[in-house]
């Protein structure tokens, strides 16, 4: 039997994907991790379309989170870590927004967030964990009682109980499952049947996509189904969990996409500079987000020489010798 599903109803522009599948107030799961495979094309389009009061959920996230927070479209975050490693150990706009009280933050650990997405993916209401006893991560709530139990926000941040299978009744932490409205994923390949293949580390993208009600996938290449079905062991998501596929070469720029390109140190360093100043950041948004209609215009602005500089070497998947200072 031939492939059951055809991509043509799902292949669309970033503009259409955001218009149809991202609503004001949505809980949005960000795929990728700090400087890798951020769905930047969708992040910029969300800003362009002026979505509001978004609720971001993630483990550790960097560039997409920081620009969304900086653009003022985010009200709430649940996360473990906000930064881009050495380029910005704490996300610059994230830090400013939290310190100014412009966003509410609920802190969890990476394992805790991972387990919460896993529980969502497996359709379990909650999941136990043995991480963080007596830490403020468990003892202090970021979201106030006025938010608790509303919409997709769980009634409690976590519940400390004990293991009913153990005679010693050891303590155990119960964490509420996450079931976001939308997951934003950037992948290397999508097949013409809608199958998704992620190369390199998958982080928690697969669980995030499964936990979500809607899934937007941007990709470097759309490839014949036969290419992906020749070795299905390597594939990451089946077609029927994906709502929108957006073809977006260099779609994670300035973050990396394994086997395609490295992160862009010049852009990330430049971003750190401008993000530190409100006016400069407004100019950045004007130039790099509002001022570019689509990914083609964005890449033209990045310029060929910077794109070639970060192009990955096929043997290692990154750009060896890239000046990363």
């Amino acid at each position, binding site marked *: 039997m031939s492939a059951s599903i055809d991509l043509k109803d799902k292949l669309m522009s970033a503009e259409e994907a955001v218009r149809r599948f991202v609503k004001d107030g949505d809980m949005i799961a960000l795929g*990728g*991790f*700090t*400087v*890798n495979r951020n769905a930047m094309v969708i992040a910029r389009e969300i800003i362009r379309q002026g979505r509001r009061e978004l609720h971001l959920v993630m483990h*550790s996230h*960097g560039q997409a989170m920081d620009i969304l927070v900086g653009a003022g479209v985010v009200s709430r975050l649940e996360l*473990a*870590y*906000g*930064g*881009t*490693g*050495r*380029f910005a*150990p*704490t*996300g610059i706009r994230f*830090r400013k927004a*939290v*310190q100014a*009280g412009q966003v509410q933050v609920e*802190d969890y*650990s*990476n*394992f*805790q967030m*991972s*387990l919460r997405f*896993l529980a969502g993916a497996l359709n379990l209401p909650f999941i136990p964990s*043995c*991480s*963080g*006893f*007596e*830490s*403020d*991560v468990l*003892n*202090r709530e*970021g979201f106030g009682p006025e938010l608790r139990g509303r919409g997709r926000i769980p009634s409690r941040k976590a519940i400390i109980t004990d293991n009913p299978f153990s005679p010693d009744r*050891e*303590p*155990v932490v119960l964490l509420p499952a996450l079931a976001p409205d939308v997951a934003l994923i950037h992948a290397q390949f999508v097949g013409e049947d809608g199958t998704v293949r992620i190369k*390199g*580390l*998958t*982080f*928690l*993208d697969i*669980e995030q996509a499964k936990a979500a009600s809607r899934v937007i996938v941007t990709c470097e290449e759309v490839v014949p189904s036969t290419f992906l079905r020749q070795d299905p062991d390597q594939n990451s998501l089946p077609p029927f969990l994906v709502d929108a596929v957006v073809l977006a070469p260099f779609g994670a720029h300035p973050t*990396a996409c*394994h086997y395609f390109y490295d992160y862009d140190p010049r852009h990330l360093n430049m971003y750190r500079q401008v993000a530190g100043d409100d006016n400069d950041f407004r100019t950045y948004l004007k130039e790099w987000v509002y001022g570019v209609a689509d990914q083609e215009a964005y890449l033209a602005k990045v310029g060929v020489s910077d794109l070639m500089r970060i192009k*990955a070497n096929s043997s*290692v*998947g*990154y750009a*060896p010798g890239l000046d*990363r*200072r």
Partner: protein
Amino acid sequence: MAHAYTSKEMMALTAGRLVKNGDVLFAGTGLSMLAAAVAKRIHAPQSVVFFETGGIDPALKELPLAVADPRVMAGTCMNSGLLDAFSLLGHRRLRTIAFLGAAQIDPFGNINSTCLGDYHRPKVRFPGCGGACDAASLAFGVIIFMQQEKKRFVEKVDYLSSVGWLKGGNSRRQAGYKRGGPIAVVTNLGVMKFDEQSRRMYLAACYPGVSPAQVAENTGFDLDLTRAGESAPPSQEELTILRREVDPQRLILGPAPE
């Protein structure tokens, strides 16, 4: 004969010396990467480095600048994801040693990487605990990197991101932790360890040329100085490997010694 070296170099080498051959090393980026890489090249060839993002035993021909750097997924024995990484971190079969950094630390090795001031409206917001809270909970042992300053070594952290020995004594185990706890704190001045009984921090060693009093001056709480020895200075071999093989671009080491 003594060689010139920076405090960052000394910190990386000092932490590296704490690694036992065969340890499974949970590394962040920065100094921990250097410590792991140098230990593996000198005395712990069978140690494996892995990252919370899921990269296990990467080739590390170039230094990663973040745990999601594509360099943590090249030449690995396995690329997986966060759940796999955290399942290894706490695996009862493995002697996992985690390297952590922080903004604040208290006398029992509890650390803060979340914020200064009020949690809801912080004076300074940091990235958050990331995987450090999990490493501090689940790893066999933890080595902490700190800058030794009064404002960083405090009686009580503003926010307890990752648990060390909690309130000392047996309190960590009573809270529900099955193993782990901080082994050492490696700073720009020396090495602190924790008393076997009280689990309170004490000065274990000063770097050459640093006095115990100097460490105490830069510590915001009472520190037992009576057990302080002196660290051996970096050997020529250690420095050569660190500078030529591990971080030739000095991406993390920063400026060379004068």
